[in-house]
């Protein structure tokens, strides 16, 4: 019996191991849902949500992996990204509704770029002013980053007010593709594709460049990288800025996905983002992607099958995975 489970485990490992979990979840959901067209819609929504969660979570995961920094203020970048891009889109309303996909995409690109630039600058400021004084002190990190998050939320409230803000979508991303009796929202497919492109770029930087090599090594053992002659603290500023920019981009995409946003958006998403990071394994972007896709799919399937369980399902997923693999599905350190 033992030998049997072992060979089964090996076979599974060769076939992709934990990477197959989303497929398993999707297959089970297919049976439970019954209606293929609903299943496709939910799966696309889950994948899109997963990719956006990945953007929000990847920075958090790397930041923790590299410097052991717990940043509860990360959600501020998500919220600001959402509101800034919504404002830019509103300002470029003419381009958005124009009957030209060139103008449409220019408006969208401007909105995303604004969010990314904000993330870079605010990330630099946040790291230098707020995080740097509390390296290696988790309690103070928690207190000061939560404080910063509250300040950020109030700032958004002061600038944009508390009433929900509606977000314009570019014309060419409105509507759905209809294939038979299956309908796929174009914006969701777009969000998935854009997230996938960012993941691939991030993957290539981490696995094909010297900076990426330093980051991966630093996640495993920061002291040793320093003992080899590299200033991990300086590298960390860059990683923090990048992570903040990705979170802001994730927020910007989320705004278009929800189409109605409130200042509480970042805070609400943060619980899910932390679950993603913990499930995936701290410090690994492959793990973060896996966690994000799982959470995205589960949220949508459960939201359809048992709406009352929607929030609890992510918690249950996290507990189950941690019982099975205490360091997450794909921890960065071996």
């Amino acid at each position, binding site marked *: 019996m033992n030998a049997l489970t072992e060979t089964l485990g090996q076979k599974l490992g060769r076939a992709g191991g934990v990477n197959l979990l989303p497929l398993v979840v999707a297959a089970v959901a297919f049976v439970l849902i019954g209606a293929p067209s609903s299943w496709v819609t939910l799966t696309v929504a889950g994948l899109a949500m997963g990719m956006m969660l990945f953007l929000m979570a990847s920075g958090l995961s790397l930041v923790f992996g590299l410097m052991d920094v717990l940043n509860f203020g990360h959600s501020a970048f998500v919220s600001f990204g959402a509101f800034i891009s919504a404002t830019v889109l509103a300002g470029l309303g003419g381009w958005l509704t124009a009957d030209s996909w060139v103008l449409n995409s220019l408006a969208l690109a401007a909105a995303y770029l604004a969010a990314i630039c904000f993330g870079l600058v605010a990330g630099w400021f946040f790291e230098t002013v707020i995080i740097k004084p509390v390296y290696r002190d988790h309690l103070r990190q928690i207190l000061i980053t939560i404080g910063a998050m509250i300040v950020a939320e109030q700032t958004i409230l002061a600038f944009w007010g508390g009433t929900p803000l509606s977000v314009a979508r570019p014309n060419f991303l409105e509507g759905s593709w209809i294939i038979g009796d299956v309908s796929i929202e174009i914006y969701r497919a777009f969000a998935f594709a854009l997230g996938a492109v960012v993941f691939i770029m991030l993957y290539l930087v981490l696995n094909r460049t*010297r900076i990426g*090599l*330093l980051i*991966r*090594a630093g996640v*495993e*053992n920061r*002291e*040793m*990288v*320093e*003992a*080899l*002659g*590299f*200033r*991990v603290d300086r590298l960390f500023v860059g990683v923090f800025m990048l992570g903040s920019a990705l979170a802001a981009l994730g927020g910007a995409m989320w705004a278009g996905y929800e189409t109605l946003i409130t200042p509480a958006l970042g805070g609400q998403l943060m619980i899910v983002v932390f679950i993603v990071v913990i499930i995936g394994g701290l410090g690994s972007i492959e793990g973060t992607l896996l966690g994000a896709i799982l959470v995205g799919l589960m949220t949508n399937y459960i939201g359809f099958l048992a709406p009352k369980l929607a929030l609890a399902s992510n918690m249950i997923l996290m507990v189950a995975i941690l019982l099975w693999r205490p360091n997450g599905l794909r921890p*960065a*350190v*071996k």
Partner: protein
Amino acid sequence: MTLLSIRNMKTDIGQYAVLHDISFDVPEGGVFVLLGRNGAGKTTTLRSIMGLWKPSPGSVLFKGEDITSHHTADIARKGIAYVPENMGIFGTLTVDENLILATTSGRFDPARLARIHALFPALEQFRDKQAWSLSGGQKQMLSVARAIIEPRALILIDEPTKGLAPSIVDAMAGAFREIAQTTTILLVEQNFTFARSLGRDMAVIDDGRVAHSGSMEDFAADTALQDRLLSLSA
């Protein structure tokens, strides 16, 4: 000529005073051995030299320059390499990636790489393997190789023979002898036979203080002193 000089070093870790008063001089060339019982403060001494703990008061002079308050990375750049007790291997990186990371330029100097492969053939055989899958001895070789992939003036090596099979310990001794021809080694060692065969000068640390220093030859001849400073029962 003195390469490294430790002056009245006192190191606290958190609220614990670990090193009370450490002073010794490492001359240029050859192997200098630091001996001492478990918990005496040998690892803490190496970490303090490397800037991973900050001694105060006390100073570390390298080639006459006070490096005590320098950042670890800057200390490394001055020509000091560190092979820690736990080897500090990056397990998810390949053997070659571990090595290339330790170069300043990001490229191998072919002659140095060839020399490393001659010293440790396993590192050539498994160059594309992830380092976590290596055996303990191979990991130790990789850690040492990383320290010599660039020219360095001084290598700090912490208990490299711990847990290794005797045949690998012999190979390690051979490698150290060759490395010591061009680079000074500050070796922390519990295995006295191994230490004795390599060391020219030595010091014994006991309870955070230097209890003895001198030539290895004299220390090896004085079994009473060895018993007093190194035996487990004392």
